[in-house]
């Protein structure tokens, strides 16, 4: 059963044709990694799924077509978002950041504070004064407060120290037990740890789909498609 089915997704930004007919599926209950070199359109894909950029094509969430739906309605259908630069509201406190994200009748504060006890301590602290790692916690917590069908997570370990990377990977593993995740990630160690499926992009197109383990085991393919290793 596919949580997300994307067909023929196109995005134009200015004169650039950024996404040129993206197609892939996200299996329910798993972590699908969206991989590719810098600039191929991974973040744009997530933003397109959310309607944050103008897009053409078909996006269906558990069978429901969302390509013409406004962002806030897509999110209310059960799509959580952890953006690339965290995008926490600096002028709001941690507690206010979380409160803003509340959607369901019973937001899952127990879960969130269990995963991130530090957030409870720093509830009154303005989010702008948090460290990068702490802001990442807020960003993930925000998305976890509500029950979502799928979580779109964009480079959660970017710019974090190795210890924090491990912590985030742990959190992701736990989150994956609860929700389907579409994960954009450059850190292949994290991908190795949590991802089941992999979708690889290159210049706006999907060039490979398959089990994550297989892809990562093939060094030649990894080097060719992701430019590393």
């Amino acid at each position, binding site marked *: 059963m596919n949580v997300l089915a994307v067909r023929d997704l196109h995005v134009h930004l200015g004169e650039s044709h950024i996404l040129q007919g993206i197609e892939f599926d996200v299996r329910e209950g798993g972590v699908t990694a969206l991989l590719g070199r810098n600039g191929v359109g991974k973040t744009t894909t997530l933003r397109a799924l959310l309607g944050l950029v103008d897009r053409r094509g078909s996006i269906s969430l558990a069978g429901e077509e969302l390509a013409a739906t406004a962002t806030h309605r897509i999110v209310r259908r059960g799509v959580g978002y952890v953006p690339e630069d965290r995008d926490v509201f600096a002028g709001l406190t941690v507690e206010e950041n979380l409160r803003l*994200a509340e959607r369901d009748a019973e937001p899952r504060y127990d879960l969130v504070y269990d995963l991130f006890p530090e957030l409870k301590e720093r509830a009154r602290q303005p989010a702008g004064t948090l460290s990068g790692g702490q802001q990442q916690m807020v960003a993930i917590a925000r998305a976890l407060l509500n029950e979502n069908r799928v979580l779109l997570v964009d480079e959660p370990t970017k710019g974090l120290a190795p210890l924090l990377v491990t912590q985030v990977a742990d959190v992701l593993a736990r989150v994956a037990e609860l929700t389907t995740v579409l994960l954009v990630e450059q850190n292949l160690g994290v991908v190795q740890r949590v991802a089941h499926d992999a979708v690889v992009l290159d210049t706006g197109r999907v060039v490979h789909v398959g089990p994550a383990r297989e892809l990562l085991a093939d060094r030649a393919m990894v080097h060719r498609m992701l430019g590393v290793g």
Partner: protein
Amino acid sequence: MSTFVLLTITGLGLGALYFLIASGLSLIYGLMGVLNFAHGAFLTVGAFAMWFVESKLGGLSTLPRFLVGALAGLVVGGVFAALVELVLIRPLYRRHVEQVLVTVGLGLATTALVVAIWGNDARPVAYPSWLGRTSTVFGAHVPNDRFVLIVAALLVLGGLTAFLRGTRYGLIIRAGVENRAMVTALGIDVRKAFTLVFAIGGVAAALAGVLGNVYFTTADPNRGTSLLIFAFIVVVIGGLGSLRGTAVSAVVVGLVQQYANYYASSGLGDLSVVLLLGLVLLARPRGLSGSLA
């Protein structure tokens, strides 16, 4: 000394007037990215709604006549602003350019309409006589309307701050001023906040219109446009989107204008404000509070 006190309180009163207009402008720009050139029209509409209602209540004594007229002004101003947002601004969602242009056209059209109906001349307005009387403060004879303006502005500032900090919509607006897209990505329909902010701005501007009627003793169709320019200057100096910056800037502008007009020469006050804008922008292009300009 007494002159100085009079000047200071008058300056604060003017600053209060500017703040009432500028607060809405600042919020609207901060949240929506729209430079609302129709904001002066909200003031004019509020001012003339007050005058119109008062003129229909000739039989009543002054105080109820004034209060009902003032209330009418506020309601009409708020409703008008909300309608403008719903009918003209919302359909142009995400097309900021067109939104600004539409407000330009609306500003011109509304003032022209008011002139068409009531003529170009200022119309005297009825208000309780104690507003026109003076109170003595440190030897200065200060007209009471100044105090009312200052109190009104403080109430609006306090009310807005409480609203922003204490309510869900206030939270949404504060977050939206920082990052509108992310707010929608949390599943919140920001467009409702847009209409609300316009309505709030409309009421505040209408209040400026009502109190301006008292301060200048008349309702004048051209006042909205001329005050709007000062309001823009106040907002840009203070930093677009920052309520506190706007408040500080309004006080500074009001005081500078009064002091310069008196201690330098009449008319120089307005020029000093302009000079102040130039200096602030050259030193800090993002305004005093450093918010996005």
